[in-house]
């Protein structure tokens, strides 16, 4: 599992250009699939036939990560940017960044900015260029960059990496695809695009598939980091079964089924209520005539920073829970 995590979080895959990670995932999962397609938006749809072809189970994890887009290059060679997805400026600042073509630089804030005045217009990237012309040889308006990969193991089997949101979900989907010994329903492993800008990719994928049951795999804020309030989920507290976030109230059918499977298989679990944020769950729940939808969440600290943190026990628990769902289905 940690190999998958490292491989996936090292890939360049910012919202709107997920092709690099898509190709990597396709290679990892191809051996376990009956059919693979890529839809017009770029979603990777991996199909595995099940025992009961009357029902479709859609599983979704998003491939994209937040990043920055070049909007303007100053005469001095300094590059101005705007955000792609929900960037927390302070979380990303003064970190190295990397463009798709390999150009690297640093993301900084105008040095005369007071803390209360920090906003996107004060951000810039310095790639070391001395002039606009020199910079333009490497980057152009519309190019996208992300923070450079980070991957570290800490105490208690806790891992820190960038873009665990939602590479960890992608890794769990691939892990479950490998470990599942049987398939209760026709199963679609969907690696979605453009989730960070409003769950866009999952809408078209869900429309194409029209699932009966749908489960997303995404991160959720662990409420036990310093300064977090009113969030029941704890790092190390087990696989989180989502009850509600800002975009969806999960279907009781799914919440109960996941609870039953967790108890039956002795997987540690906890319930999640998130006061903000949205996931692909909502897109799947509302596709066509609608379906029962829910989410298995991975408790994560410091989301949308370069140093997102998960507990391997939680990750393995999520994978085991997902495998149980794929094998046994909804009772």
């Amino acid at each position, binding site marked *: 599992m940690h190999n998958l995590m490292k491989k996936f979080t090292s890939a360049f895959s910012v*919202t*709107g*250009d997920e092709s690099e990670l898509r190709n990597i995932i396709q290679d990892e999962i191809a051996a376990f699939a009956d059919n693979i397609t890529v*839809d*017009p*938006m770029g*979603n990777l749809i991996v199909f595995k036939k099940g025992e009961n072809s009357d029902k479709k189970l859609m599983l979704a994890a998003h491939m994209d990560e937040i990043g920055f*887009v070049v*909007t*303007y290059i*100053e005469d001095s060679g300094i590059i*101005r940017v*705007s*955000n*792609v997805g929900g960037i927390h400026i302070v979380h990303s600042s003064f970190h190295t960044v990397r463009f798709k073509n390999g150009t690297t630089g640093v993301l900084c804030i105008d040095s005369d900015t007071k803390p209360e005045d920090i906003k996107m*217009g004060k951000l810039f990237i310095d790639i070391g260029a001395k002039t606009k012309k020199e910079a333009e040889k490497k980057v*152009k*308006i*519309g190019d996208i960059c992300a923070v450079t990969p980070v991957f570290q193991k800490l105490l208690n089997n806790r891992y820190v990496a960038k873009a665990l949101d939602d590479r960890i979900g992608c890794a769990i989907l691939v892990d479950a695809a490998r470990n599942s010994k049987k398939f209760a329903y026709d199963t679609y492993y969907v690696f979605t695009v*453009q989730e960070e*800008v409003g769950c*866009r990719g999952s*809408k*078209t994928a869900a*429309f*194409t598939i029209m699932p009966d049951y749908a489960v997303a795999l995404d991160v959720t804020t662990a409420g036990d980091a310093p300064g977090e309030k009113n969030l029941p989920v704890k790092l190390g507290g087990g696989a989180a079964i989502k009850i509600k976030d800002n975009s969806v109230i999960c279907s009781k059918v799914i919440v109960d089924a996941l609870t039953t499977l967790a108890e039956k298989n002795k997987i540690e679990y906890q319930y999640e209520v998130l006061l903000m944020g949205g996931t692909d769950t909502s897109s799947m729940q509302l596709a066509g005539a609608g379906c029962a939808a829910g989410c298995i969440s991975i408790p994560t600290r410091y989301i949308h920073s370069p140093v997102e943190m998960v507990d391997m026990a939680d990750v393995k628990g999520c994978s085991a829970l997902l495998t149980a769902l794929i094998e046994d289905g909804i009772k």
Partner: protein
Amino acid sequence: MLDRLKNYCNCISPSGCEDEIRELIINDIKDYTTSYEVDRMGNLIAFKKGKKTPTKKILLSAHMDEIGFMMKYISDEGYIYFDIIGGIDPRVIGGRRISIGKNKTTGIIASKAIHLQKANEKGICVPIEEMYIDIGCTDRISCEKVISVGDYATFQPNFEALGDNFIKSKALDDRFGCALLVEIMQKELEYDTYFAFPICEEVGTDGAKEIAYNFRPDIVIVIEATTAGDIVDAPKARHACDLRSGAVISHMDGGTIYDKQLVEFVKKTAEENKIKYQIKNVIAGGNEASAYQKGASGARVIAISAPTRYIHSASNVVYNDDLFEIKELVSALLERGFENA
């Protein structure tokens, strides 16, 4: 193209009330299309057969609706309280003339004379719900003879040439797109193409969503008007785009991340045909491309826009030659086709 543009801009057709512009467009295209239909929501979609049938379904889109106003309540004194249709900055409407309904009744959005304002009122914009329209009636009964709750209105038509080769008018967003699509339909096409004129883009791209579901295009080119911030005192990095710099190609805006391959394809086509273009450099705004991209099973989308100053106000301004660059670009793209895009 410009005469047609004038007629289109002078229509009174805000979101949800597109009858006038739709009739005008149908009149202009009916002799040049293979077929056209008006769906039950009011969207107009035309199909023109070309020399070849492409492997991917191509759709061009320009929305018919414009921003406007709706009459909400008539007071005992004969004044009309109203609401805005679409997004309009309340600061651009005080004191403006508007045209109401099928009869194009003239009304003024009342603005308190400066002599009557208190010190703490000066310079502050009144909220929309406190503004009202004066059509010259002095009581409710006489006003109700002319106006009903639910009547719609837009800024008064004012299409004119301005300065050295510029145009000013209301509703260049997106009657420019409509006029361009109609121009293109007048000529023979290389490939079969759909032309869509959706309703209700200004209130949430609803029309486009319906068209996407019914027609399932593969490639969509949205022709729009986009905000240009190249006015005095604006820093270059925040212009978004400039007048006189050609067709605007967007790579991303508030609602859509455009298909990267299509963006490159369009840029290359422009370069090969020596067409002036620019890349939008502020991530803001949105158009019906988002509805086409996310609609049904998805589509690949691109937007080509006219840089427009003072968008969503009574007087938009565009540069004539920019409009012709866009026409050249779209014609070149349709000629080339999207088989290799």
